[in-house]
């Protein structure tokens, strides 16, 4: 008996980061194409089985030379078994769907479109996309959103049931119907990104993972000729430019840093470059979406080497355009901040005056926090302190409260 001297695959350390998770969508997409979208649940079981077999056999036998192909093969075999069993038992289910030409030519994209089908409730679209496309477990999704696991599970079950009952097709219409479907997909990705990016609560690493996943998926959309439209590039630009700042948003103690106090050297230049690449493609054509404006704002922050050199007048203009296109109290708040630097804190306060009784802002801690900043900058310390106390009472997370406490202390 000779000892095993070396393991070629193990020696090379060949398990690409996120291989399993990133293989989830293409394998699942291929299986849904085989089994039909009514059998999304069954297809998922087959993918999970393949991963489980890898988990159980690779430790003993080593990693196969092509792990991704191995996983795909095992999952497909499993799906074929299911098909064969259904035929033998005569249940007719799952039935092999009639062969149709792929419309987008990419199973992963078709899967995204199915999960983001506008016939599903938006909550379910998001949960299903995270589960089936991003390959997150229900418990990971629950942790990222600070929701009970059972809630997430219910949303996913409801979505699958609707897909099956409504007989939603896996094939994406490759015509005039594509635009609304694409919009629905983009909306889900936007929600996914924002949930990850807004530092409100939840597991920080998982939330950053949501951002990266949204970037990965939107990048897939930009690469396909049918879906790589300017608005999609605008969305990609926004995601890249925003997430480039993620590494600088917390200090070593885990405390939040505002844009003014971030070390800009920590911004991810690779993501910034990708953002500007997408921004250039977003400018093709004459469509102007809110994502275009948000990406433009993010790019103006990226271009400023220091906080003081920020081009606030252009940012204020972009927020004004955004307010016109998609009015919301939160956009007005951001507009006011930009205006306070582009013009004066007084101008900003004037812009915010009509929002005093806005119910949407009544429990939004950033509203009093921004008011406090404006008052402080015009020297009204008493009013600033009052607003900071209000903000402190509303702030949802410890890092956010700590930030407010520090600002309160600086006003003493």
């Amino acid at each position, binding site marked *: *008996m*000779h*000892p*095993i*001297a*070396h*393991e070629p*695959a*193990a*020696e090379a350390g060949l*398990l690409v980061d*996120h*291989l*399993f*998770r990133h*293989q*989830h969508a293409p394998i699942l997409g291929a299986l849904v194409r085989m089994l039909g979208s009514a059998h999304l649940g069954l297809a998922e079981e087959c993918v*999970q089985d393949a*991963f*489980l077999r*890898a*988990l*159980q*056999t*690779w*430790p*003993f*036998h*080593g*990693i196969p030379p092509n792990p991704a192909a191995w996983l795909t093969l095992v999952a497909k075999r499993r799906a074929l078994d299911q098909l064969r069993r259904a035929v033998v038992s005569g249940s007719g289910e799952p039935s092999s769907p009639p062969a149709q030409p792929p419309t987008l030519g990419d199973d992963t994209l078709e899967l995204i479109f199915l999960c983001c089908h506008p016939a599903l409730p938006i909550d379910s679209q998001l949960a299903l996309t995270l589960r089936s496309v991003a*390959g*997150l*477990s229900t*418990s*990971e999704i629950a942790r990222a959103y600070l929701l009970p696991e059972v809630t997430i599970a219910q949303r996913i079950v409801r979505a699958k049931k609707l897909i099956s009952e409504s007989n939603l097709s896996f094939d994406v219409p490759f015509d005039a119907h594509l635009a609304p479907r694409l919009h629905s997909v983009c909306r889900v990705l936007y929600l996914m990104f924002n949930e990850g990016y807004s530092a409100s609560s939840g597991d920080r690493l998982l939330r950053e993972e949501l951002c990266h996943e949204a970037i990965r998926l939107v990048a897939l959309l930009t690469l396909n000729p049918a879906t790589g439209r300017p608005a999609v590039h605008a969305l990609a630009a926004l995601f890249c430019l925003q997430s480039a700042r993620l590494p600088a948003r917390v200090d070593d103690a885990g405390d939040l840093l505002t844009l003014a106090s971030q070390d800009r050297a920590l911004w991810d230049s690779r993501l910034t470059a990708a953002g500007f690449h997408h921004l250039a493609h977003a400018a093709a054509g004459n469509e102007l979406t809110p994502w275009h404006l948000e990406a433009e704002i993010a790019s103006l922050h990226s271009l400023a080497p220091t906080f003081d050199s920020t081009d606030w007048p252009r940012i204020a203009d972009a927020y004004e355009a955004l307010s016109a296109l998609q009015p919301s109290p939160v956009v007005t708040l951001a507009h006011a901040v930009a205006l306070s630097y582009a013009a004066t804190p007084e101008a900003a306060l004037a812009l915010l005056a009509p929002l005093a009784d806005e119910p949407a802002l009544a429990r939004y801690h950033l509203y009093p926090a921004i008011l406090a900043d404006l008052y402080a900058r015009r020297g009204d310390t008493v009013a600033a302190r009052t607003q900071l106390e209000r903000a402190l009472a509303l702030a949802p997370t410890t890092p956010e409260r700590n930030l407010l406490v520090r600002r309160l202390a600086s006003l003493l």
Partner: protein
Amino acid sequence: MKQYFLFLYESPGAFDTISPEEMQKIVARYIAWRGDVAAKGHMLGGNKLRDGEGRVMRAADGKVSVTDGPFAENKEVIAGYFHIQAESYDQAVDIARTCPHMDFGVIEIREMEITH
């Protein structure tokens, strides 16, 4: 060098609900452990035993009964084994101690009786 078998016991279904990412991390840990043991010249082999099937045979009153098993109950079953060589039980224990399986189940070590 003496030869030992490490029998890895686990509860069926222990990994059923974890995410692909978590699975990959666990696989990576096992592969790293296996590579490390192999690099030190201790690894002789190993195999996964097929899940969810098996036969248990018993003789009673001169009759052999064969039943499906041992998966009938939800108890721990042997999931697979590693075959290693080591100087002593102490060293075999040290090798098994670092195995990621210790996070998921039980390892039983038995020395192989070698007759020359």
